[in-house]
């Protein structure tokens, strides 16, 4: 390496740059050209200043297709152009890098799980006063639980677009075939355990899907009165009797009753595909599956509540919505955009695709949400009252990874509850104790 460097210098000394031995004026011109080129590069690197509002969001192309006309309507009405920044994957990661780079968007779409991380560091503006003073939007336009999900330590940091919760999707044809009455809202885990064997054809068809994902198994724990972390978010409570009971009931569906498919049965196929192809009678999932099912599913299907355990039927009420940068140069315009996005007309447009449970009761209880399959869409609204947002401690992402990976062998049956839980609890406790 050093020799190479030395060799070049020696060659240079030998006068090998003859090709560049131009007369002096030409050299100066070349130098000038070089410096201006570099200046141009530097200028190109600097962010362009414009009056357009910068707005970031994730979502499928279908969602973006719904969003574009809404943004165009805003520009026509307010005269403010909007630069849409579509980030389909690794959203939180890219948003953080934009914060560091000083290019944080004026308006950001945000989930309630990601919100505390940004709110804690003062990235998001407080919207409470703006909402209180607004002439067009009022607090009571939204479900209170959903608005709460957009709060961090009591401060409102976003207006919600939608809420997400879990229900049971079921295949009516399979119930008819087995001669089992459909599960009615308010049904219980005991009902599930009773009817499940009748809906199962070993190796071919199963009563209920099985997803080893914390999002899906948390309602089993909650509905038994347990939790993943305590209210102060200092201790992992999965080892407490109620939580263990919930996990065990879920595990037994797969390993004792054999009414839920094992990994061997499914391979890499996802539960949502198994349900769509008629191999599952029931399946716990959220509203976002509806647009695809409306297009693809040939059989009759509907939704009902998550089966009640000893503590009732408790599912999550999570939310996503629009937040404003605390550093925006155009707070008035940004608020107008958020207000426009959260208006009845916009939320109705988002709702019509079937993708979301709207944050606004005036839309939720109207035809935009309730018409079309599934017939029982009201279930999504009826469970809001008892639902609760997911607790998001600072190390939420890392804890979620540990829960997925650490409990993996338990869900496959390689380890028992007693074997799998203690190391996971220890690890989660350590992550909760990390002071950031």
């Amino acid at each position, binding site marked *: 390496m050093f020799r190479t460097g030395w060799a070049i210098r020696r060659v240079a000394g030998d006068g090998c740059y003859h090709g560049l031995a131009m007369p002096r004026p030409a*050299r100066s011109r070349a130098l000038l050209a070089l410096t201006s080129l570099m200046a141009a590069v530097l200028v190109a690197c600097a962010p362009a200043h414009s009056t357009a509002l910068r707005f970031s969001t994730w979502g499928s192309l279908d969602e973006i297709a719904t969003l574009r006309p809404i943004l165009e309507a805003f520009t026509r009405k307010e005269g403010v152009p909007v630069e849409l920044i579509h980030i389909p994957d690794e959203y939180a990661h890219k948003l953080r890098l934009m914060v560091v780079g000083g290019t944080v968007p004026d308006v950001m779409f945000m989930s309630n799980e990601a919100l505390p991380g940004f709110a804690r560091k003062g990235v998001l503006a407080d919207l409470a006063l703006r909402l209180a003073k607004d002439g067009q939007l009022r607090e009571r336009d939204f479900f209170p639980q959903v608005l709460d999900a957009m709060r961090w330590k009591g401060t409102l940091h976003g207006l919600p677009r939608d809420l997400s919760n879990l229900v049971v999707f079921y295949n009516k044809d399979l119930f008819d075939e087995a001669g089992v009455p459909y599960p009615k809202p308010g049904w219980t885990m005991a009902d599930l355990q009773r009817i499940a064997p009748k809906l199962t054809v070993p190796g071919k068809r199963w009563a209920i899907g099985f997803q080893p994902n914390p999002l899906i198994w948390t309602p089993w724990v909650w509905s038994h009165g347990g939790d993943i972390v305590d209210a102060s978010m200092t201790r992992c409570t999965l080892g407490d009797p109620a939580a263990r009971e919930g996990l065990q009931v879920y595990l037994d569906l797969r390993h004792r009753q054999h009414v839920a498919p094992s990994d*061997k049965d499914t391979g890499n196929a996802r539960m949502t595909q198994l349900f769509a192809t008629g191999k599952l009678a029931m399946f716990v999932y959220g509203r976002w599956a509806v647009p695809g099912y409306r297009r693809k599913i040939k059989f009759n299907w509907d939704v009902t509540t998550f089966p009640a355990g000893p503590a009732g039927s408790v599912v999550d009420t999570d939310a996503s919505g629009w937040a404003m940068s605390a550093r925006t140069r155009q707070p008035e315009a940004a608020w107008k955009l958020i207000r426009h996005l959260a208006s009845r007309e916009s939320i109705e447009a988002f709702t019509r695709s079937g993708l979301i449970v709207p944050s606004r009761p005036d839309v939720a209880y109207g035809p935009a949400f309730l018409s079309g399959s599934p017939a029982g869409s009201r279930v999504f609204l009826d469970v809001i009252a008892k639902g609760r947002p997911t607790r998001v401690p600072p190390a939420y992402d890392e804890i979620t990874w540990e829960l997925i990976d650490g409990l993996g062998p338990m869900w496959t049956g390689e380890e028992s509850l007693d074997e799998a839980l203690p190391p996971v609890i220890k690890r989660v406790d350590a992550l909760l104790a990390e002071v950031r």
Partner: protein
Amino acid sequence: MQPVRHPLRSERIWGLLLASPALFIIGVFSLLPTLASFLIGFTDWDLLGAPKWVGLDNYTSLLADPVFPKVVANTLLFVVLYLVLDLVLALALALALNQKLRGLGFFRTAYFLPVVTSMVAVSIVWEWIFDPRGGALNEVLRWFGGEPVHWLSDPATALPALVVMSVWKSLGTNVVLFLAGLQALPGEVLESAEVDGATGWRRFWHVTLPLLGPTVLLVGILAGIRAFQTFDSVYIMTHGGPRRSTTVIVYWLFQNAFTYFKLGKASALAYMLFAVLAGLTWVQWTLRKRWVHQEQDT
């Protein structure tokens, strides 16, 4: 004595000036981040807000982290498996392709095709090959009466499965390097070995392989560095699981930086990886005198 010259007449200045665009780019996009990440390694930073200086905390907490030894072990296992499989297969293929065979051009292209294919596409194809239900590999096993294996979801097989895929993907590069090495061998030495009665395996073991020493060293160092930097296949296929069995250093670094937003810990990890790589390269370099017989003094 030379007259005093205008600075612009000095070739050194001109050299620097002409190199300046490249120096600028390397400086801004390579040297500065390298220096910055070294400093970030001594801070607690989640990208939002100001970094907090914590001294050596990241290094000490890494050493105390129960995941750390597992990640190091995974990485070393990956590197060793990869190096052995890659070097042996690449050399064997290069020897085969060095013969005068029919359709040689086709085979040389075929082995190089995976190299130019994106890792994402390759990973998706291999996900199907490894699918426990109806995947190609298990179907083949079934013909021989084998039980289906959960290649990617069993902690015992997930890492070796990724190694196999990575070797398949990068084999072409090393085959080409070995081929170049083989074709540069002095014909007279091989011929005289043959005259002396060394043929087949003996000629390979005692003549060809020692002569190929510099190429083996080069391929070994490059393949080793590549193995240490494995990331994309893990990111796409296993996310570091099951049970952290495929969490290699670079993937864990990425997780810490961009999933858990512990930039300080991730930067410290990067410098630990750098130290290990530098150390191993130095060892390989020092040991080369022992087993690289023919090296031109450059």
